[in-house]
């Protein structure tokens, strides 16, 4: 078990290193921060001073090594814009994003999974067809379209809800709805097919042949087996709790992590973007680790084998 965890952690670390390296290289190949920060009309000596201040004239590999050394000592640099620590800027934004993504995740789980399971148990019924149609509708509409349509209906036409900002809980309703509808659709469809697959398995027939009431067949034999693939998908959703609202935050001018990504990439605020990607990568890797452990809990066949002696 210890070796299993260790292997997982090493892999997680390598994944994060890869992300960090990639971000570092791409950011430096895609435009000069000095030019963008200071504007096209900035005098040359100001640009030179800026480049010298941030070490942008050093060879790339030197910058990279310095950066790695920095993050290994948990120093994530400061923003080129206002000199505040990058990690502070990022962490400040996380609660606002989670205020959208966590309720959205709860909605996805509480509506998507039951709807999918219900549809699978009542295959070919009107309810089943309804769930399929609704879920296709949900996950095929891009969030930037859905968000704008919701604004048009509920903010502009009906004037029930505000169209943007973060002043009250009412401001969160439309962004949460936009975020969750797609996920509900995907999860409903996925749960439905996972459940249908499991219901066709021989052990379900065994459970029925045993004389178990249908309710118990579903709860004790079908659902625990269908949970394995569903957990994979839920893991992805958990992994995108921090970075999953970029588009929605932009539409509803919600001051979360997503907005910070857009603004700091546009400004080439290197330290902030790198710090953001590091935090996002770490959250995704954590979610994946959780999924791996959940697999072990749910399916004994996927449990780590004890080391051979």
């Amino acid at each position: 078990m210890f070796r299993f965890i260790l292997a997982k952690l090493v892999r997680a670390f390598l994944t994060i290193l890869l992300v960090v390296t990639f971000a570092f290289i791409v950011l430096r190949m895609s435009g000069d921060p000095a030019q963008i920060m200071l504007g096209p009309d900035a005098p040359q000596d100001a640009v030179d001073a800026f480049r010298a201040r941030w070490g942008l004239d050093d060879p790339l590999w030197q910058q990279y090594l310095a950066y790695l050394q920095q993050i290994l000592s948990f120093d994530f640099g400061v923003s080129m814009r206002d000199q505040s620590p990058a990690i502070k800027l990022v962490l400040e934004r996380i609660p606002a994003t989670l205020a959208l993504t966590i309720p959205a995740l709860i909605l996805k789980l509480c509506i998507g999974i039951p709807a999918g399971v219900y549809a699978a148990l009542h295959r070919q019924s009107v309810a089943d067809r309804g769930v399929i149609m609704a879920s296709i509708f949900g996950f095929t509409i891009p969030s930037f379209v859905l968000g704008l349509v919701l604004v048009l209906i509920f903010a502009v036409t009906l004037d029930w809800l505000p169209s943007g900002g973060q002043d009250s809980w009412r401001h969160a309703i439309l962004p949460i709805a936009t975020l969750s509808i797609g996920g509900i659709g995907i999860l409903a469809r996925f749960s439905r097919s996972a459940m249908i697959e499991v219901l066709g398995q021989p052990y379900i027939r065994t459970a029925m042949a045993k004389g178990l009431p249908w309710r118990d067949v579903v709860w004790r034999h079908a659902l625990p087996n269908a949970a394995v693939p569903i957990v994979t998908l839920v893991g992805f959703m958990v992994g995108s709790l921090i970075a999953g609202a970029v588009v929605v935050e932009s539409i509803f001018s919600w001051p979360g992590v997503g907005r910070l990504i857009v603004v700091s990439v546009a400004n080439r605020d290197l330290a902030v973007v790198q710090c953001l990607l590091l935090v996002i990568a770490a959250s995704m890797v954590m979610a994946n680790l959780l999924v791996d452990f959940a697999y072990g809990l749910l399916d004994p066949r996927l449990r780590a084998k004890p080391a051979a002696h």
Partner: protein
Amino acid sequence: MAFVSIRDLRVAFDGVRVLHGIDLDIGKGEAIGLVGESGCGKSVTWLAALGLLPGKARVEGSVTLDGQQLIGAPRSQLEQIRGARIAMIFQDPSSSLNPVQRVGRQIGESLRLHRGLRGAQARTEVLRLMDMVGIPDAKRRIDLYPHEFSGGQCQRIMIAMALAGQPDLLIADEPTTALDATIQAQILELLSGIRRETGMALVFISHDLGAVSAVCDRAAVMYAGRIVETNDIRSLFAAPAHPYTQGLLRAIPDIDASRARLVPIEGTVPDPAALPTGCAFAPRCPRNSQLCQNYAPDLKPQSAGGVVSCFYPVEADQTAMSQRQEVWA
């Protein structure tokens, strides 16, 4: 008096009839084999009787258990019968057990359901059942998962689970098909032994006549959704009256005549959606005539015992009869 009685059982999937009126009686404690090629309706017969077919299946006719009608019975009534009166085990034991539940719990579930045993009492009984079906070291292995057992052991666990409800009838649906030959023999022996001990009736579904002869007193041969011949096992082997039964027997390798060619049955099983008008076996039958192609024969009692549905049944050949009897006795 028959304890399970099937009368004119017909099953159709999406309008295609796969079972064309099965009549079968099973006495208390009797062991009967149901033989035929894949897709001839052997399993469907019993899945239909227990209400285990998918919803799109249309089931007609009658199956009674001690006079109680099962076809069209409400779900709760069938749940009382499944596992408690009639238990069933299946072809692929490894995938017939729930992969994410400990085997002890799966066996215990039947005990709780049908005998109200719980906790330590149930555990003791699970251990006894596992011992009885020959799982070595049951005490240690009761909390393992199905993937930690071999196919043969999974089938033993399935049998233990079936026995947990103390059924009057066990339906064994190709229980040895997925297993190695040596394991097969052990499972057959186990089934025979259990039957001797408990006196329960057994329906042994198989395409393997050898396996059927090892555990059954009587066998019914099915072809394309019909029973074509029923007889006690010795007579069936000694003097098969239906050309199809004869064909099946000729396709079994004979241990004494190692060099002899096996005689296959020409052709293939007809598509249930496009059955011939007359006897379904006529297109493959060496004895067929115009009569067979136009009319389907009924099951008729034979002078030598048994019933057969054939206009031109094979007459018992004395020499062949004695030879066969030697081999299969």
